């Protein structure tokens, strides 16, 4: 029997579409069959878009038949529900946006549509992307496809689970402190946070504007390169997007890494890391060495301060960004409101969940009169030092290699009562957002319980090509048994 289309990667499906072995409508049908079969268990999606997707698929088939197909024509993709989709409800995982129907597409969504991609649905996420487990969504908890009693990671847990469970070929997420890389690691797939400014954030519902970045979740590194090429680039609608030419990232796949220097920061190999994670990551270093790369021990001295800096800067920016939810222009309005101020207060208090309120409170506090210098300014200064650490380190190496997450996926409910414990699961991913550098997570092994383990590679600004090159070398030579979650 031929392989079910939903199992395919983007580049495999693309080849079959080009050869005429499959149609885009077949592929979309297969994906919706898969969603119907497994999504009740994984709960990856908030909104499934079958009707519009089938129309897009038939259009894609026409384009392919007339020889106008591109790399993404007819490819079923899922979108994190933080990205605006014209005419399709976009909730950001929150009650406050329960009825919000954007009048425009995010730039990345428009780009995918222009290239003929088939959007199959909007995926679940922690409310306003604030979380590391996808447990804070107003629309229910997403489950890890490898073990349904465990979390998929977060905040882009729905986008990661959907790819791992073959409910789409690939998806988009957003990463403010690890929200793409950590769930990719925990779900056994590839996830990349590009350089700050590489991908337009226009139409991305803002959490922390100096840290947020959109990126791909894919089944392999080649797909990651392909999808990154499709979404990257300058956008006049987004003043922090950077006008630097977008290379063909796919051209870095399969290239030699002989002579490369792999930086291993001692601060990332600390007590408290799960021994199985440590072993799998060490093995990855060995694989790269066997390909002619050299291990270089480096230091990133301000690593221990990253979490504290992040949990000042991100909530501060969030408290300001989320001030727009006032029950006036869009979103939830409390029916009980008397005067205007009471309407603001009640709409926000009823519309936001506990973690979002916690961060708004924290952010408002650190920005409030008398505390600004002690917290926000201090954190921004330490952020400068963290960035300098990386600048210094990349003089001595091509890429930096670390674990993505200190442990494999934890159990649902395990960390919900202790916010600080939850925040610690982002300890290895946060620094890249603070420094603005790109990072990729890819599978590097499995725990004894059969849970996926991820390894993270980091590079200097706009060196995504290097990440693709090193990740592809690792993927091709790591000899990790191809496994699928048993769903």
């Amino acid at each position, binding site marked *: 029997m031929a392989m079910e289309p939903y199992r395919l990667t983007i580049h495999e499906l693309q080849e079959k579409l080009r050869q005429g072995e499959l149609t885009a409508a077949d592929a979309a049908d297969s994906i919706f069959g898969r969603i119907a079969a497994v999504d009740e268990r994984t709960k990856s999606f908030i909104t499934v878009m079958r009707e519009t997707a089938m129309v897009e698929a038939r259009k894609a088939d026409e384009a392919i038949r007339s020889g106008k197909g591109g790399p993404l024509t007819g490819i079923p993709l899922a979108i994190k529900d933080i990205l605006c989709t014209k005419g399709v409800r976009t909730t950001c995982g929150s009650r406050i946006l329960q009825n919000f129907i954007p009048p425009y597409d995010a730039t990345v969504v428009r780009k995918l549509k222009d290239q003929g991609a088939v959007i199959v649905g909007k995926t679940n996420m922690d409310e306003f992307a604030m979380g590391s487990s996808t447990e804070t969504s107003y629309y229910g908890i997403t489950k890890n496809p490898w073990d349904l009693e465990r979390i998929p990671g977060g905040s882009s847990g729905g986008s990661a689970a959907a790819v791992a469970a073959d409910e789409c070929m690939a998806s988009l997420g957003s990463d403010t402190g690890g929200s793409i890389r950590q769930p990719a690691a925990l779900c056994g797939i590839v996830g990349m946070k590009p350089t700050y400014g590489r991908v337009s954030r226009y139409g991305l519902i803002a959490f922390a504007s100096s840290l947020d970045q959109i990126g791909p979740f894919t089944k392999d590194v080649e797909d990651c390169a392909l999808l990154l090429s499709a979404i990257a680039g300058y956008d006049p609608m987004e003043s922090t997007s950077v006008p630097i030419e977008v290379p063909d990232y796919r051209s870095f796949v399969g290239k030699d890494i002989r002579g490369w220097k792999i930086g291993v920061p001692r601060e990332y190999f600390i007590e408290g890391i799960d021994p199985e994670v440590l072993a799998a990551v060490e093995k990855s270093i060995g694989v790269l060495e066997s390909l002619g790369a050299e291990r270089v021990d480096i230091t990133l001295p301000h690593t221990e301060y990253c979490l504290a800096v992040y949990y000042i800067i991100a909530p501060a920016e969030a408290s300001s960004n989320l001030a727009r939810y006032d029950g006036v222009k869009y979103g939830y309005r409390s029916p009980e409101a008397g*005067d205007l101020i009471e309407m603001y*207060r009640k709409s926000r208090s009823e519309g936001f969940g506990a973690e979002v309120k916690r961060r708004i409170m924290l952010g408002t506090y650190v920005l409030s009169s008398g505390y600004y210098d002690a917290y926000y300014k201090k954190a921004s200064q330490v952020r400068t030092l963290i960035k300098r650490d990386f600048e210094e380190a990349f003089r001595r190496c091509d890429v930096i290699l670390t674990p993505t997450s200190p442990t494999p996926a934890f159990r649902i409910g395990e960390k919900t009562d202790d916010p600080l414990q939850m925040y610690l699961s982002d300890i290895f991913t946060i620094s890249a957002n603070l420094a603005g550098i790109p990072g990729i997570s890819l599978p590097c092994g499995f725990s004894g319980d059969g849970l996926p383990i991820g390894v993270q590679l980091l590079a200097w600004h706009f060196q995504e090509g290097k990440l693709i090159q090193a990740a592809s070398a690792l993927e091709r030579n790591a000899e990790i048994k191809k496994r699928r979650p048993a769903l």
Partner: protein
Amino acid sequence: MKITKAEVEYVAGLARLEFSEEGKEMFATQLNSILSYMDMLNRVDTSGVEPETHAISLKNAFREDGVWKSLDPEEATKNAPEERGNCFRVPKVIE
């Protein structure tokens, strides 16, 4: 204790949020534990260090002062909880 219940109430007022008595106690405890963790930053000498607000050096991005199409008023008010004649309706502001 850095944050008292009274301070939680003050900050909640600034953030336009309200909490039950139980909620205020919980926030005071949780915010205190998070803020004590952040005290570690005081160990770092940052004298003379410029604060970083964006990781990539940015210039102000001006664009041509041209006229182009923006959202129709109908579309712009379509998501409003209450709307009349393409305007957003809110509770009475002036007595």
